[in-house]
């Protein structure tokens, strides 16, 4: 399930090129900006900007294989 897990301890992580390593897995649910999106610098105004704000905190990139996801990456209703 975990085809790729990259643990990134990034110090002063966020530059103009973003905090995702070049070989980072494509987040299957990354609806904003795509896999190469930069982290967001202040001012942060939306939820998605806040949760993806630049940070020096420990990051873990995941690429789970989830066959039950909808085509648009959303989750289906519960059975």
């Amino acid at each position: 399930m975990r085809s790729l897990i990259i643990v990134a301890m990034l110090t002063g992580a966020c530059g103009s090129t973003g905090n995702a390593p070049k070989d980072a897995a494509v987040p299957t649910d990354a609806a904003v900006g795509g896999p190469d999106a930069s982290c967001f610098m202040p001012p942060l105004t939306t939820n998605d900007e806040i949760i993806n704000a630049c940070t020096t905190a420990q990051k873990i990139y995941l690429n789970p294989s989830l066959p039950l996801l909808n085509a648009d990456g959303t989750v289906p209703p519960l059975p």
Partner: protein
Amino acid sequence: MRTLVFLAAIATGGVAYASGPLPAEGPCANTTNLPNPVYIQCGDTQANLMLNLGRALRANNPPITLIWVTAPSCNNIDLTYNGGKIGDGNASGGGTTAKMSYVPSVAQDATWQPSDGAATCDLAGPTTPDLTNSALYNTACTTMPPPSNVNAVIGPKQAYVLAEPRGNAQIAITAEEAYFLFGYGPMILASMNAALEPWTDMGSLFIRKIGTSTLLAWAANLGMSDASKFKGTPEASSLAVVGALENASMPTAAIGLLGAEVYDTLRDRLQVLAYRTYHQYAAYYPDSTATSRDKKNLRDGHYTVWSPTEWMDFVNGPTPLNPYARYVLDLISGLDVTDTGLAAPAFDAQAIVAAVGLVPDCAMRVKRDFEGGPLAMYTPPESCTCKYESVVDVSTCATCNASTPCASGVCRNGYCEEF
């Protein structure tokens, strides 16, 4: 015989080095031994706060005795909103419980420590609470507003985590994985060729019962509108989840829901998964690293599974019915206690709040309006970030005093706070 030592030792993460026998069980209404009582019904994630704050308050001037029982948050709200009593036989009043917990005073046990656990006393009969607590937004349990005789205050924030036995190889999980795991369950997933390794055993999912903040917070954050669909074994308490994880027959498949302050006392025995919420690029721990205790990601919005604690006391118009209960509510919530007519404490209540894994409002930089709701930036009236970090980790802020002013910011509690 301290019957609660073992469980309390689990709760506080230490071995039960009994410092001496706890006081013999007696009536809670003994105001000589238990002066100025404040009867509390709170969520079980608040037990460590009760132990630590309870000890400080026993030595306070005036001394105050916290006498508490834990119950699911929604039960506590129901009890509060509907005039219930502790031990009245209804589920909202803690069932038929007649035993309450309290912390012995220095005179009763000079060497008591939180790892010794709580002493117990007996209720004479159903008792009206003075102070109640939910560990999530009350609106997650009821659409009713608080009645006019209830003063509800948003208190410190707490994270909820997905925990597993220490040593497991898994280090992170996505919201989508957690949604499928707990919403469908391993059996259905396997039948649909969508098993989530290593979480393939239905019997290794340890959750909480309906009405608990831990379950409802996770359900809300995962987008599960019907929390009753949560798959797993509903455990009766946070400590039962801890025990289930530690004794799981398939440890590598074991995963359970806990409050972060419960986990924080058990880091030598459990570990938590970093969590990536919907639309997020990476997974994060509640803290800035797996081993830190700074709750940085909760405070700045990178870790999204958190709730406020709400604290409620009873009023007659603007006047609190029990000034000691209001005093405790104010202490926990970081408010001015002197409006109760009582002196400010000689101890730092917010340091206790921080040390047990809760985050004071003054250290928060994000907010939300309802359980699992979107985050927005937040600026508290006065920052305590430097002081908070000095308690839980290491502060990098400049220190200050009357003769050493801050180059920038505001000197508060010995640190140059941002504002």
